[in-house]
């Protein structure tokens, strides 16, 4: 069965307090218990409390990492502010809409889709049960539609609501069964997801995954300032860091947090901060200091819609430019991007280890989609031991040179506490000793050193993931990877082989490796979620691309889905032929 035939995309919407998100979360949990995979995004209005919200799920028997082009099912508890989310829930004539007859007329923008509408008296069903809530009726309906087991649903309800007391659980379970047992002739186009094998699963968001990867990599100090959509990285880390002897400090601003991280790392403790665009802007001077003074550190940037305050709650890949080029002066550093929620674990861990090994800052470019979506994934393999930085040995003479020119460009780093190696880290250009210098040869030596340590390092196979073969390829990075892979799978099924290259290591550029990857490619489709084609320009700047290049670049807030990539690719191939 092809991927798009065996997934269910379900939207649950409702305004403030209707509990749409709760249903989504429970459904995801249930799916996992039923041996399925899944992913769930949330879409919320600008209100802090109340306001419209939507849980946008896709469930599948195989691992699934991106939203589909359309939704099979929309369960709408009401139609308030439907215009705000209509674009996020594409429906068509094969889709079903479940709504309450009392919710008023279906907005045109939804009705136009031609989807089949079934009105079910959700409200009255719920009100018949004391303490009943319509969202649980909805959960029952969806569970039966998906042929999921009622048992796992009850588990999910119980574990979620246990802190609200027995009565709440009971009322919800009753509502659930009211929905579950409701008789309709509703049918999803593909009612049952066929589970191959039930293996252990994780239910994890990308922000949690990145946080876990950070701990695995050895991070023990975090200073940060809250910002949407990065705060969950910090929320997950704070209580856990202290349980492994680390510290998280909420700083007064991002200038403080990045510089605190510089100080902590200077002290020998592996350190990290997390932020989003506005915060990254404020950190650029501090990151530049880390480049010049050769202090390892990691910045997780969970990109949101830009520019400026932009769209804080929505995803985009538009912080690529600032991540790569955002420091003044010649400031070589590392930029990596996770390709899926579960890859957030590995890529963040890798970033930490690269930063430590190369004594330079690493920026992890995640985004709101990866960071705030939850995914049911297979349990990843256990990582090896964290790599550590090259530390100087105590000396009794004055021979220690912090910025000594070495073959690798990496110089043993002294850490306070090591005798005889006292030195002053400096953002001023310096001699090998660290002493400030404005002499041309010193400047050139240190610029060479800082670049050389990155350009000569062997980053191995992780620099990019490549799937498939042929002369037609899609190139992408980060969170659009999953859609590109699924597009390639669909195209393959349609007889169009497509190779997918997704770059994990965005800086430094891997020119020779890319040359190998692109060998034989005659047509290349660049896929990215930015308005100004940042990735495409980045590729042009650093790599030699085939003559025929097409670009599919679209800003957020809507996700780039497999179907539109298929279309763009078919168009490219069609035009060339």
């Amino acid at each position, binding site marked *: 069965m092809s991927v798009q035939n065996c997934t269910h995309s379900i939207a649950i919407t409702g305004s403030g307090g209707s509990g749409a998100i709760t249903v989504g979360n429970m459904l995801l949990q249930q799916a996992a218990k039923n041996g399925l995979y899944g992913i769930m995004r949330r879409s919320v209005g600008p209100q802090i409390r109340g306001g419209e919200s939507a849980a946008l799920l896709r469930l599948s028997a195989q691992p699934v990492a991106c939203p589909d082009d359309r939704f099979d099912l929309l369960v709408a508890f009401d139609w308030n502010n439907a215009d705000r989310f209509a674009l996020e829930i594409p429906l068509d004539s094969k889709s079903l809409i479940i709504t309450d007859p009392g919710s008023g007329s279906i907005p045109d923008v939804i009705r136009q889709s031609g989807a089949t509408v079934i009105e079910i008296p959700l409200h009255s069903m719920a009100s018949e049960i004391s303490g009943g809530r319509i969202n649980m009726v909805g959960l029952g309906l969806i569970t039966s539609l998906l042929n999921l087991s009622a048992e796992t649903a009850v588990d999910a309800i119980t574990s979620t609501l246990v802190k609200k007391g027995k009565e709440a659980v009971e009322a919800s379970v009753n509502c659930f069964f009211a929905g579950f047992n409701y008789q309709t002739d509703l049918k999803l186009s593909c009612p049952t997801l066929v589970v191959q094998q039930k293996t252990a699963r994780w239910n994890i968001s990308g922000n949690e995954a990145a946080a*876990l990867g950070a701990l695995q990599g050895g991070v023990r100090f975090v200073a940060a300032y809250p910002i949407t959509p990065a705060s969950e990285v910090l929320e997950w880390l704070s209580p856990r860091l*202290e349980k492994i002897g680390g510290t998280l400090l909420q700083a007064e601003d991002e200038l403080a947090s990045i510089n605190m991280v510089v100080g902590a790392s*200077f002290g*020998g403790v592996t350190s990290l901060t997390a932020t989003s665009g506005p915060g990254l802007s404020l950190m650029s001077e501090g990151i530049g200091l880390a480049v010049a003074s050769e202090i390892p550190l990691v910045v997780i940037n969970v990109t949101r819609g830009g520019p400026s305050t932009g769209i804080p709650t929505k995803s985009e890949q538009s912080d690529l430019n600032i991540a790569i080029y955002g420091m003044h002066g010649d400031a070589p550093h590392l930029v990596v991007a996770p390709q899926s929620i579960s890859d957030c674990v590995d890529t963040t861990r890798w970033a930490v280890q690269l930063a430590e090994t190369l004594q330079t800052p690493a920026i992890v470019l995640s985004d709101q989609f990866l960071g705030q979506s939850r995914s049911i994934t297979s349990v990843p393999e256990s990582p090896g031991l964290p790599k550590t930085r090259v530390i100087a040995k105590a000396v009794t003479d004055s021979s220690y040179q912090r910025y000594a020119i070495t073959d690798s460009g990496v110089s043993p780093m002294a850490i306070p506490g090591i005798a005889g190696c006292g030195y*002053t880290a400096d953002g001023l250009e310096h001699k090998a000793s660290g*002493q400030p210098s404005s002499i041309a040869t010193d400047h050139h030596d240190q610029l060479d050193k800082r670049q050389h340590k990155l350009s000569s390092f062997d980053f191995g196979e992780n620099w990019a993931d490549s799937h498939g073969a042929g002369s037609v390829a899609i190139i992408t990075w980060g969170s659009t990877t999953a859609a590109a892979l699924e597009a390639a799978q669909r195209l393959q099924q349609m007889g169009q082989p497509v190779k997918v290259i997704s770059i994990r290591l965005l800086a430094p550029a891997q020119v020779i490796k890319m040359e190998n990857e692109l060998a034989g490619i005659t047509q290349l489709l660049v896929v990215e979620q930015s308005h100004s084609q940042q990735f495409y320009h980045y590729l042009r700047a650093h790599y030699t691309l085939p003559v025929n290049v097409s670009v599919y670049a679209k800003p957020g807030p809507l996700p780039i889905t497999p179907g539109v990539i298929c279309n763009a690719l078919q168009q490219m191939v069609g035009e060339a032929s």
Partner: protein
Amino acid sequence: MTDLKKAKAYKSEVKPIWCPGCGDFSVLSALTKAFAFLELAQQDLAVISGIGCSSRIPAYLSSYGFHGIHGRALAIAAGLKLARPELTVVAAGGDGDGFSIGGNHFLHACRRNLDMTYIVMDNEVYGMTKGQASPTTHPDWTASKLTPHGTGVRPFQPAAIALASGASFIARAFSGDPNGMTKLIIDAIKHPGFSFIHALSPCPTFRPEQKQWKNQVQKYEHEPTDDPVIAATRLYSDDGMSTGLIFQSKYPAWHRTDVEQASITQFEEEFLV
């Protein structure tokens, strides 16, 4: 007071870029004397600064040091102290670095009360960038081309701000009285919390009139207090030129909370469904 030879061991071989007569020379030597008196091991000592003439100080010491970026000395120092609580951490810099661009970190460092020391060498001018007004510059100083009629702004009151922000140790020192300064630095380092020394340190190059400071400075006439109301009352009636320990309190220094230990594997298991 302290053995000069021992103090000298805390100096590095880098020659200061300071102008002849710059007050910062005395601060450097008071620092080394304090370190020597306290018998601190160089390797367990870190001096962190921002950018400015005064901020050049770490390179002139044989301890660990960080010459950071303008205004961020306290943030770097805080990170270091949080990560390595056993180190002695001293942040140092100028009035521009600490009170202008770095003002926010100053506020929050005073509140946070980490166990470290902050010495601001106040010359009421930006020395490094050749003589502009700083927050502590008097409103009628007209020698900067950027403020040819003076700033017209009342000066920043470092000690009063420190007090209002909740600093637990506030002292004023003068580079013309290196022994007094040494003593205050010793007390500041010993103080278990954030200690702030407002060090009057003249800039003969851009503020030649500060050569008169030696005639204006006087010892603080009161005993130090731990009562912020008394300290405030004194500070608001003070001319900003009296030296000594002004305020010291027992506010608890910030420290990590001890919690039950766990392992990363345990955290991973939380994700299992």
